[in-house]
């Protein structure tokens, strides 16, 4: 009995870890994109996640997506719509605020130049999370669909009493996340705009000599980064209850993932997020519930202190 239970728990944790990891990975991609191009640590990224959740929720419940597309395709489309909405929000925020503290001049300064950005995004985080509290209230919401409480059964496996329960909403969310992450990867690698973003990230001055408007690239990176994380939020909303302060719960996961993957590497961030997801779920096997989050922090601190360049550590210093 014991072996079967252990195997079942481990496999379940592994599965959940991969599922959550895919979602974390997508969130991290958004944050990493913003950092690699703009060299901005966006403290408000958790709030973009939150905005994505609410946007998806409203799209699904109020804007009729549920009615039109039903409870299976609905949440997915709602998440994508949320991405579009937050994209626009990102553009607006960039034009109003970020533009004044980023750009060609600041992107080059590694030293003191980044404090204004950090502080600004901190203020933004406070405004968005508390503004959300005012607008949306503090009652947790979920995008509940039949899939949220149904699970596919996989088992018995290995001829033992080992059955895996694959929550439908989560699984679908993870699959969509993987698709979006894949699409981003292709976009960055192949699309002309993707290459321009990479060029602006590598060397803003040289990019200017090519005729690339670095400010515009920053704006695009910020908006896309926000949108990607928002899509992840919209997907998470389909199985996890959320309220306006939820950003803070995930922000450390995002940072841990990005740092683990190597700051400056967008692809690495995805793997970093995935790894964090796995670590978090596997740790449930040995650690009590409340200590899980603390475990992530400790892991994060260890990574920063011992190996700040992460796994795929790109040289964050500019050419």
């Amino acid at each position, binding site marked *: 009995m014991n072996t079967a239970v252990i195997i079942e728990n481990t496999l379940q944790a592994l599965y959940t870890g991969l599922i959550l990891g895919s979602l974390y990975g997508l969130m991290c991609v958004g944050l990493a994109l913003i950092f690699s191009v703009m060299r901005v640590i966006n403290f408000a990224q958790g709030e973009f996640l939150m905005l994505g959740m609410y946007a998806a929720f409203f799209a699904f419940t109020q804007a009729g997506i549920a009615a039109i597309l039903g409870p299976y395709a609905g949440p997915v489309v709602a998440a994508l719509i949320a991405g579009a909405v937050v994209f626009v929000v990102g553009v607006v925020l960039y034009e109003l605020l970020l533009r004044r*503290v980023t750009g060609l001049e600041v992107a080059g300064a590694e030293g003191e130049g*980044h404090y204004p950005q950090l502080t600004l995004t*901190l*203020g933004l985080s*406070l405004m968005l999370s*508390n503004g959300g509290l*005012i607008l949306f209230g*503090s009652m947790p919401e979920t995008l509940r669909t039949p899939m949220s409480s149904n699970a596919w059964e996989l088992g018995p496996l290995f001829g033992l009493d080992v059955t895996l329960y694959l929550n439908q909403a989560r699984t679908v969310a993870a699959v969509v996340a993987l698709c979006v992450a894949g699409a981003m990867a292709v976009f960055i690698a192949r699309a002309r705009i993707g290459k321009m973003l990479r060029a602006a990230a590598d060397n803003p001055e040289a990019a200017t000599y090519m005729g690339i408007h670095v400010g515009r690239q920053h704006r695009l990176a910020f908006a896309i980064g926000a949108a990607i994380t928002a899509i992840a939020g919209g997907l998470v909303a389909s199985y996890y209850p959320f309220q306006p302060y939820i950003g803070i719960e995930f922000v450390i996961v995002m940072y841990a993932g990005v740092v683990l993957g190597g700051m400056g590497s967008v692809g690495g961030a995805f793997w970093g997020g995935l790894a964090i997801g796995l670590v978090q779920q596997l740790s449930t096997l040995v650690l009590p519930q409340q200590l899980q989050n603390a475990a992530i922090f400790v892991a994060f601190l260890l990574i920063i202190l011992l190996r700040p360049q992460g796994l795929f550590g790109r040289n964050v210093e500019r050419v």
Partner: protein
Amino acid sequence: MSNASSNRMAPNDAGAARRDAATSAGSAESAAELKRTVSIIAAGVVLYLGATWLISDRYYQLMFTIIPIWATVGVAWNIFSGYSGLMSFGHAAFFGIGAYTVALLLVNLGISPWFGIVAAGLAGAVAGVVIGFPTFRLRGHYFALAMLAYPLALLYVFEWLGYQEVALPMNREAPAAYMQFADQRVYVLLAVILLVIALAANLAVARSRFGLSLLAIKQNEPAAMGAGINPRAWKLRAITLSAALTSMAGGLYAVVLLIVTPPTVFGMLASAQALIVTLFGGIATIFGPVLGALILVPLGETLHAELGNRLPGIQGVVYGAAIIAVVLMAPEGILPRLARHWGRDRAAAGGAPLTLDAAPYVRPPPPPAAIEAKTLLDVRGVAVRFGGLQALQNVAFAVRAGEILGIIGPNGAGKTTLFNALNGFISTASGSVKFEDQELAGQPPFAVCRAGVGRTFQIVRPFARLSVLHNVVVGAFPVEPDDAHAYGRAREAIRRVGLAGREGRIASTLTTVELRLMELARALAARPRLLLLDEILAGLGSTEIEHVLKVIDGIRREGVTVVVIEHTMHAMVRLADRLLVLDHGVVLAEGEPKAVTSNPAVIEAYLGKRWVARADG
């Protein structure tokens, strides 16, 4: 005119000490300023406590208590982040540790908060060292993220430990012994006392070598190291003091609120409040955090009280908006912004710029007897490697006492690398650097400075708001433990570069050449026997160049040996007694300027092989 004064022999120590012993902080203006600040604090305290006395509403009494507590946290944050430039986004870690120390000591061990708060201060200090030690190795973004993570990690740990809500028990028998007072106004008094302690600490730090060293580190850390400052040590001292004060504030907070929960004391809002209060009011100023707390805390609390029901979270929105507004419009905070606005008249009357001695510099005749000048610096076989690239290879030369040696060479030859190796900023793969028979290779930059080797840097970043004297004295502190003597040395250095009489000028009013001379004075304040000048003439106009050449010659005549890196060749060939040519990391030639500049190998290095070939053919 400036030549005459710089040629005077440096006065002896005792005389300087006697002259300066009268003014403890180094100058009459500083003592007056101190008196003014203290009287403002005293007046403020009286006013505030008087106003408190008149308030009978418990709610407002509580607010009057909270304001000085956050002001204390702000002042404490300022002591570390404001002066060092390392923004801590995680001061809530110390705040929470202090709160829980007091709460748990009372709940579990029955220890009165009177002792508990002191214990909180100690706990905070320890936490400061424990957190600071590993985290200071990190640069920029990583530092910010790590500091952010500490309080949040503690938040979860404390929740896991079961301390979701720790209530401070009432004590019926001897409430006062347990810091429990029926009259809320007593807490205001306690909070104000704590704030005054914090302000006193801030004052002690601000104009002292503590604050000035931190500022130097903030402005240009490598330059500070080259001036003999040990950044790690100062940062640790700063964070320890800051953390202790913050923890004490947290402890008092626990006593006042009677309940401690992890999100309240370890949460993001607490960290944000610590920094917004100072950012808003004014970074690296004494009263900035107080002003910030006076404005923001009542604003936040009132909004929360009035609108909290209809608009929960309005406090956070306002704080967030305040942070954004400050960053975009007044990055240094309100007080400095206002000061600049009003102080503009004062600055305009900064005084006439330095009269430059524009007569072309003529190299003085060589000293009469062929003195066997001893070798001051002996460099042998120095090699430096960056990854696969050999930046310096088998570099060897000797610097004779009393000479001016110029190091020249085409772009990328390794000149700055050589200076950095001599100074200790980069390690040598092999070779030795003997200064007065003391091996310098392998020593950190501040040790090299204390051994008697001074250095100037290309990027001059002065303390814009401070006087010339304060800018220069930073160079004297590492080698002079006594403050009065240090200020004496600073004045002497200022005289030697010809800026006598300008000690009180604010640095932002100086011209470029005056700033260069001030930088030179800072290096001289440590009384180096060897001075490394890194492109001190870069970007100066021709009359400015002539003036500075004479100042350098004057310094040499006082017995300082000078090694110069310069690109301004027409000046170099007149200034240097000898030239050393580096090319591709190797010593190409050495000798008198005329000989070196006609050396075909040197010409080839600069102008290319084909030039030499053509010129012959």
